[in-house]
């Protein structure tokens, strides 16, 4: 990639496959090289696990809270502090796909248990993923499979499994399955439910466990996607993962989440992928690897279509917040008031663990409206404008190395480099230069100069993160 520095390539990778990285981490990864960094991301078990003991000691409700903010805070804290960024990013990916909301469950630790499940199979085999999510009590309750009985089927889970979790309604302007397939799918999942559980009071919340009730399962013959047999739920999953539509659906989801904003899922039946070759490459890897998500991600991150997609995606609120916090190096260890960070995502339109519908959040430009944009800009500007943040102090220190007197253009170039690198338009650059040029001299040679310099730099950082470009990953 001519003119594109290794640091910039790594920064792009870390924004997409993680939640951004500090300049120091980028330099570390740059020394490792791009492909080696991809492998490290794909193998999170090689990195130290998250230090739950410290978090649970200082913030006990991260483990045993009964209110949903407990787990929103805990998850946001993990996104910021994790040393396994792709594992956490894939957890967010699956939360987008298997969108489940606490609002119906009202059994909040169950949502944390689902997150643990998503994290555990984050880069696993897609068959296993579909099977496990079908047994997840949060999903079972969310989509009424506990009401799916032998002789009285409830089609909700069966329908969404096909429509939103695996195949999609259609592709290439055709249908992927029929209404009869939905009914037969639902019959196959009868008896997949959860065991009764104690109420929240008097001693706190408890999680459900999956329970298969053979006496409530429809053991009769079923016809599904052209195959016939006495299918149970796992047989249905086996058939689903063999479908070309499934490879297409998963590939488009991965492309949309990691590469470039696609149209929303409901329109995929009639809207072709924007990069047909890219989707084809991912589909091929799906079948070659027997549905191994890690293999698909390896193809994706090492592809030219990914490397050339820098700043083509609007950051989700979770990505924006976690990225800013990692940049300023705040909440990388336990600290009070993490709810202020978690709640900020909701104000920006992404109430984690509470997606608006089973379809999940609409992404891309739909993240941005006037209210959300103000929240995004204010959140980022407040953080990078705070000189007490360790990451901001490090940026100031690095910029001051060019002193004792620094030209405005030099300062701007280096600041853009350290914040991203962020690529800005010529108009934006002119605006930022206008801010800097009001200072006749930018000096940092004496303690008094440094005080002024900190003010100049934090002002510049606030303007950079307020830019249109910073809204993109």
């Amino acid at each position, binding site marked *: 990639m001519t003119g594109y520095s290794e640091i910039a390539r790594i920064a792009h990778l870390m924004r997409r496959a993680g939640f951004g990285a500090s300049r120091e981490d980028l330099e570390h990864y740059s020394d490792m090289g791009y492909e080696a960094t991809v492998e490290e991301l794909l193998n999170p078990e090689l990195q130290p696990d998250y230090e739950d003991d410290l978090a649970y000691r200082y913030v006990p409700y991260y483990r045993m809270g009964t209110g949903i903010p407990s787990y929103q805070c805990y998850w946001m804290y993990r996104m910021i502090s994790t040393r396994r960024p792709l594992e956490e990013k894939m957890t967010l990916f699956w939360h987008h796909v298997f969108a489940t909301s606490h609002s119906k469950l009202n059994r909040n630790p169950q949502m944390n248990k689902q997150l643990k499940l998503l994290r555990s199979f984050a880069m696993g085999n897609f068959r296993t993923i579909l099977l496990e999510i079908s047994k997840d009590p949060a999903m079972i309750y969310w989509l009424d499979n506990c009401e799916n009985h032998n002789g009285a089927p409830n089609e909700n889970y069966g329908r969404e499994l096909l429509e939103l979790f695996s195949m999609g309604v259609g592709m290439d302007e055709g249908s992927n399955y029929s209404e009869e397939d939905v009914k037969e799918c639902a019959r196959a999942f009868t008896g997949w439910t959860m065991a009764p559980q*104690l109420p929240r009071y008097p001693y706190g919340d408890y999680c459900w466990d999956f329970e298969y009730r053979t006496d409530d399962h429809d053991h009769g013959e079923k016809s599904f996607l052209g195959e016939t047999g006495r299918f149970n739920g796992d047989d249905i999953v086996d058939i689903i993962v063999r479908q070309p539509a499934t490879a297409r659906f998963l590939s488009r989801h991965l492309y949309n989440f990691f590469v470039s904003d696609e149209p929303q899922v409901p329109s995929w039946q009639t809207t072709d992928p924007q990069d047909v070759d890219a989707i084809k490459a991912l589909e091929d890897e799906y079948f070659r690897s027997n549905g191994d998500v890690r293999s698909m991600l390896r193809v994706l991150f090492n592809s030219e279509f990914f490397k050339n997609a820098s700043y083509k995606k609007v950051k989700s609120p979770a990505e924006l917040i976690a990225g800013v916090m990692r940049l300023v190096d705040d909440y990388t260890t336990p600290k009070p008031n993490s709810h202020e960070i978690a*709640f900020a995502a909701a104000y920006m339109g992404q109430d984690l663990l509470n997606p608006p519908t089973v379809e999940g959040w609409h992404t891309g430009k739909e993240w941005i409206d006037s209210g959300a944009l103000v929240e995004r800009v204010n959140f980022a500007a407040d953080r990078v404008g705070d000189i007490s943040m360790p990451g901001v102090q490090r940026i100031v220190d690095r910029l001051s190395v060019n002193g004792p007197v620094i030209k405005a253009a030099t300062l701007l170039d280096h600041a853009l480099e350290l914040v991203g690198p962020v690529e800005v338009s010529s108009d934006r650059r002119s605006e930022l230069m206008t801010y800097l040029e009001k200072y006749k001299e930018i000096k940092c040679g004496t303690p008094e100069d440094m005080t002024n310099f900190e003010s100049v730099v934090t002002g510049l950082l606030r303007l950079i993160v307020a830019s249109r470009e910073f809204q993109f990953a």
Partner: protein
Amino acid sequence: MTLLTKVLPSFKYSYTIGNQAVPPAHGFSGPVSAAVGADGLLYVLCSYYEYVPAWKFVVKCNMDEDYIKHFGSYGEGSGQFTWPNSIAVDSVGNVYVTDEWLNRISVFDSDGNLQQTRGTSGSEDGEWDRPAGIVFDSEDNMLVVDSLNHRIQKFSQNGEFLSKFGEFGSGQGQLDTPWGINLDKDGNVYVADWRNDRIQKFSPDGVPILQIGSSGSGDGQLTRPSGVAVDSEGYVYVADWGNDRVQVYDSLGSYVGQFNGDCHGYSKWAEARMASDPEGMSAERAVVTDFTIERVFFQPTTVRIDDQDRILVVDTGRHRIQIYEKQYN
């Protein structure tokens, strides 16, 4: 010749105090520590949500589960708590609460009126970096676990620095992010050496005497022990925080037994709670066949011994205190 065999005690569940509630309702929310006062008084330190300020507080009650009052809230102001860790009572009934975030100890009278705050952040003598466990010796000297300085500091009753022991490490006498602290009847000091997965016993002067436990989940092993207490016979009770259990050792550190929580029936406050919604909660309970999950500990943090040698287990995740009695069959 007659061989004498030591008769080991067993531990029987007695009753429970508490249920999940926030003042003015009677109960606890995320209790992390408790202090036994005179005449059966009990002070329970609750550290729950930060996003609802009323959910960090101290409940004053008694061992008969009579609710007396509550005080404190989340925040950084006088008398508030941010990361409250432990609570203790001195000989005249004043109540001390350590706060790991604010690096201070708040001192209240027995009615919860703030008397003073103590503490300065740092690593010099008399300074703290995340004060955790706290206990008073027979002379009313205050011993404080200075957790991120990995040491124990001793202060006189009026707050004057007296001595210190411990340093960071995993060797004998060294500590890693310690948490709870307690004394035996001879004034020996027991420290929950949290990140070293062990209990260390020191002489009253801070000389290391004994190490109890090792990392793991087997009998006698520990995962992040947070609290420790010693009864009148020298049995050592450890809140095995990461393994959701309490383990018992003899005075030489040999494993004696464990208990995992046995709460059955309801506390008085829980009974009242159930009575307020007999149809809803009873209907949900009626279809449940296995009540094990309700009975067992969930992140037990602190163990205390009262003047009757009863064992109080602060069962943080279940918002209650389970009380056990030692018996010899």
